[in-house]
């Protein structure tokens, strides 16, 4: 289906396009409008996002799928306020993040959003406990309280015995658990997880995804997670497919189950 056809669909039947039950009032945590991103490298320019529109609902678990190079990471970075798009806007709870100054942006990254990366990005020189404490210190939580909270949350992700270990002494799965604990430390509204399981074996990956889903239900946090693995789709509320820097499809999981099982059969 071409993109222009897609847009027409969206106009005539928004429910199909967004995969939303529009009879219910829904709140959007993230709204992307016409987001384009062009990377310039010397004389060449690469269009990583070619106009992305997406509404992400409060409290949902949305998975983003798409081949490598389809713009998932770029989309995450734009939504997370980590890079500025060439065009278009991202609204987080109706606030246009392009309007924020440096201090406000730091607050947003610290308090509103938790990031989980493919390569964990745990600060190497720090223990698990220090890694999880740090964002709370940035937020202004008193050190003692921050430490107590960090211990609680590390216990929650199953690392109660590993508090004082540094990344070197932790497996990939354990490091990603530290990253999850750190992302949740300031009780953010949104978790952005960019292929969090790509560097993990299948089983560990499933455990990580299950943990994120639990935290999503427990805390009502909106989780946006990109993945290659179709298994991971089972627990998402909605799935967004990206291709060539566009949203190819955005649908509720129930509505795509058949497609998924077919894809599984085909061995994708």
């Amino acid at each position, binding site marked *: 289906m071409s993109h222009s056809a897609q847009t027409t669909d969206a106009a005539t039947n928004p429910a199909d396009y967004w995969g939303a039950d529009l009879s219910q009032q829904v709140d959007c945590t993230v709204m992307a409008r016409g987001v384009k991103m062009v990377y310039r490298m010397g004389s060449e320019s690469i269009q990583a996002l070619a106009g992305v529109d997406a509404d992400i609902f409060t409290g949902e678990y949305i998975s983003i799928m798409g081949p490598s190079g389809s713009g998932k990471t770029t989309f995450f970075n734009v939504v997370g306020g980590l890079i500025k798009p060439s065009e278009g806007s991202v609204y987080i709870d109706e606030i246009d993040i392009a309007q924020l100054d440096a201090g406000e942006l730091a607050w947003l*990254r610290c308090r509103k959003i938790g990031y989980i990366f493919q390569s964990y990005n*745990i600060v190497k020189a720090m223990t698990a406990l220090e890694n999880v404490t740090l964002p709370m210190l940035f937020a202004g939580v008193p050190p003692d309280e921050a430490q107590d909270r960090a211990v609680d949350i590390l216990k929650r992700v199953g690392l109660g015995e590993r508090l004082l270990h540094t990344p070197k002494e932790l497996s990939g799965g354990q490091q990603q658990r530290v990253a999850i604990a750190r992302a949740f430390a300031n009780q953010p*509204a949104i978790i952005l997880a960019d292929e969090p399981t790509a560097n993990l074996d299948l089983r560990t990956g499933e455990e990580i995804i299950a943990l994120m889903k639990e935290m999503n239900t427990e805390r009502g946090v909106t989780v946006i997670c990109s993945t290659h693995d179709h298994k991971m789709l089972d627990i998402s509320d909605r799935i967004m497919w990206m291709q060539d820097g566009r949203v190819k499809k955005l649908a509720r999981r129930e509505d795509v189950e058949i497609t998924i099982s077919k894809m599984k059969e085909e061995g994708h």
Partner: protein
Amino acid sequence: MTQEMWEIKRLHLKPELVWSMAMSSLRLRMGRTLLTLLTVAACCAFLLFLLTAPISDDPADRQMWGLMITLSLIVSAAGVLNTMLMSVTQRYREIGTIKCLGALDSFVLISVLVESAMLGLAGAILGIFAGLLLSVVIGSISVGLGVFTAAYWSGVFWKIGAAALVGLCLTTFGAALPAYIAAKMPPVEAMRGEK
């Protein structure tokens, strides 16, 4: 409406956090810290020795002396600057990460500067003691008990001050530019910097 309206707030620089970040960074990289400390100390010690040691009034000797000071300063400065540069560039990824966690650009920049200044200062203090000792020992060989006269130590406080300043500037300037670049870099770019 389940959604609570939130008000966007602003993070401010927290000096106590800058201090603890700088100190823990020095502690965590103890090996490199000690090495830089010794380099700075050696540089300051040598400088102070050259400044205080007795020289003959022969202009040729004085010229030679000046050349030695300049050369040794250049060599040790290059060493320290290089270490500081590496110490910061190796941290790009970490800097990008902490910016994602809410670190302000100013936090990144100032904590690196504080860290470097502390390192420079500690090295300078160590170097000043070593330099004075060196001056007494070597000076006593050439002028005997003359090292204990006031004339030998004329202007010593200025010389100590100069050595301390050199130590402080070496590390701080060496770290300033890469720290500034890393602080200004968008977090994702910084995170790609180094594996």
